[in-house]
């Protein structure tokens, strides 16, 4: 008998990377696939993948209903997001500020094909640090409200975070995260927001700008490997990265060279190393070896061994009925790692102590 976890890994990765394999799935395997894909927010993406490979006819009727439902949720979130961007632009009308849209919103603005099946959580925008106060005030004056946070969290956001506390318009349901850079100020990596803004590109027929393709990939890498907690829900980010790379690569000669150079300029070689390594090894999608091996951000032997063991364990969704202890441990270790990268020890220890105290009291945390 196959081990449940291996079974999940096999069917999920196979269906995402070698879609023709869906033809061989049994009904029970379809069921498991749908459960796991839903858990990691890839249900609509899976539908899109199968559709673009002409495989929708191989999908059983009951499975299709789940795909339809998932796609409707994605369409709805995308509609909300585009409307929110429209409203933000209106709120900032005639104000001389440059606004960049990040991540999901950007993929949507650029109409990158996979974005139509990507479940969007919130709107991330970035402005120059010198503009952030102005933008926040304008938005607040026009109906956006700042999440209610206690003194500590407010202080924490203002002092150490790369964004102001989340905003939400009083009449709408989508959160707006307003950033001035892409990593917390306490983080070990400090890519320059000026460089990112300098290279940003205007999106046709909109008043917004987005990161350049390579910067978009680097930002997503940083987010996944330096800011996220790396659990089953973050697996989607790796799939995003794969889609971005293979969407932009054919459009630019020497794409990987440019990507690596830019990573060096922004001191983001390490996250890029992990991205390329795990797309190659975990998603079974070949990346020319030299771009992985020549990256000077390649970690030491020990770190590599550890990450190569922990990341796949933590990132691939668990079998929903058979969670494993070692996965919980791997996720905990990576959770601690993510905090360690986010802030130095003298901040980390009090912060984690406070978080666990809050958790015991059953309160929400950021």
């Amino acid at each position: 008998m196959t081990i449940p976890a291996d079974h999940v890994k096999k069917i999920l990765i196979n269906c995402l990377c070698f879609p023709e394999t869906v033809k061989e799935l049994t009904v029970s395997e379809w069921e498991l696939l749908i459960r796991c894909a839903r858990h990691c927010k890839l249900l609509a993406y899976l539908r899109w993948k199968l559709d673009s490979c002409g495989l929708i006819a191989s999908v059983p009727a009951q499975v299709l209903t789940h795909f339809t439902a998932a796609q409707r949720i994605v369409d709805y979130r995308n509609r909300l997001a585009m409307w929110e961007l429209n409203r933000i632009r209106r709120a900032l009308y005639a104000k001389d500020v440059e606004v960049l849209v990040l991540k999901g919103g950007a993929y949507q603005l650029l109409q990158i094909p996979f974005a139509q099946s990507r479940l969007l959580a919130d709107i991330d925008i970035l402005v120059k640090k010198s503009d952030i106060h102005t933008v926040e005030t304008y938005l607040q004056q026009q109906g956006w409200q700042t999440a209610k946070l206690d003194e500590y969290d407010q202080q924490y956001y203002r002092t150490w975070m790369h964004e102001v506390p989340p905003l939400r318009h009083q009449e709408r349901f989508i959160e707006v995260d307003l950033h001035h850079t892409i990593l917390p100020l306490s983080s070990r990596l400090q890519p320059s927001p000026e460089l990112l803004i300098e290279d940003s590109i205007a999106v046709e027929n909109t008043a917004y700008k987005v990161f350049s393709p390579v910067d978009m990939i680097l930002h997503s890498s940083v987010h996944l490997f330096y800011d996220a907690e790396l659990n089953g829900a973050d697996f989607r980010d790796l799939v995003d990265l794969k889609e971005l790379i293979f969407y932009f690569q054919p459009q630019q000669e020497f794409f990987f060279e440019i990507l690596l150079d830019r990573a060096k300029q922004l001191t983001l070689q390490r996250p890029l190393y992990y991205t390329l390594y795990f797309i190659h090894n975990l998603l079974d999608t070949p990346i020319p070896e030299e771009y992985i091996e020549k990256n000077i951000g390649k970690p030491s032997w020990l770190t590599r061994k550890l990450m190569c063991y922990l990341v796949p364990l933590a990132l691939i969704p668990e079998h929903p009925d058979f969670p494993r202890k070692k996965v919980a441990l791997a996720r905990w270790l990576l959770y601690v790692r993510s905090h360690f990268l986010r802030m130095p020890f003298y901040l980390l220890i009090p912060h984690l102590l406070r978080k666990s105290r809050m958790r015991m009291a059953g309160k929400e945390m950021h």
Partner: protein
Amino acid sequence: MKLRQLGSGNLVKQAASKEGVCLDIGAFCVRVKSNEIVFLETLAFLYQDFPILPSDTFADFHIVIKRPKGVRRYLKPQVIFVTDGQQPFEPFPLSHAFPLFEWGLNWCIARRSHQYLMLHAAVVEKNGKALILPALPGSGKSTLSAALAMNGWRFLSDEFTMIRPQDGKILPIPRPTPLKNASIQVIKDTFLNAEMGPLFPKTRKGTVAHLRPPKQSVEQLKEAVLPELLIFPKFQANTEIQLNLLNKPYVVFKLASNAFNYELMGRTGFELVKNMTSSCRCYNLTYSRFDQVLPLLDDLLMQNV
């Protein structure tokens, strides 16, 4: 095979297995796993006429009803609802496992089933024509749909009206109706053949007892039906029965705000609500007595437009 035919010993064994029990509830197939005997007994009674499907059937929802870990289980045992490894609600007292299951299943349906437009409405059928009763909780739609179900109408649902975009037909989910507080006695007194599950005192909604759906309704759980009447009911004690014809644009707005997923469905939602409103006769209904409301609804359905 029907759940009744499985026998309680087999049910307990199968519910404890890796595959669980696949219950066909009409629009969906639910996989249930549990070791809780009392819960399974209630399930077996209230769902007795529902078909059991082979374990390799595709199930839409996975539900585990079990006791949480921790020392508390020796003092004051509790029960949790788990779906796909997630636990969306706080634990319930062990004795309330069945209401927790029903509540959780509602949650699963409401959150995920956007292949259909979902109205927050009870729905019954007679002569191939559906009567939809959209209303807020507390307006008596469960009680009224239970009374109609006990009075010769086919029962489709007391909570969800699932409309299929392809043909505008309503899919049944004839699950047990949770009757609350005074309604329990009213239904018992009015319909002597009404069969109910155990009383669950002190739930979020007061005392709850579930009415077993009529056998005939469960047998027709795969038969979709077109809507004919849209009636917004309101129970008001000691009032004369009142039926007011509604103008259709107003009904469109009412339905749009009543549906669980109108906005999410986008254009499809709008088209469905629009078509349904224009093809149905729409009324507001205020009532206080079954002996008035039941004949009135029978007559109304019979009238030709």
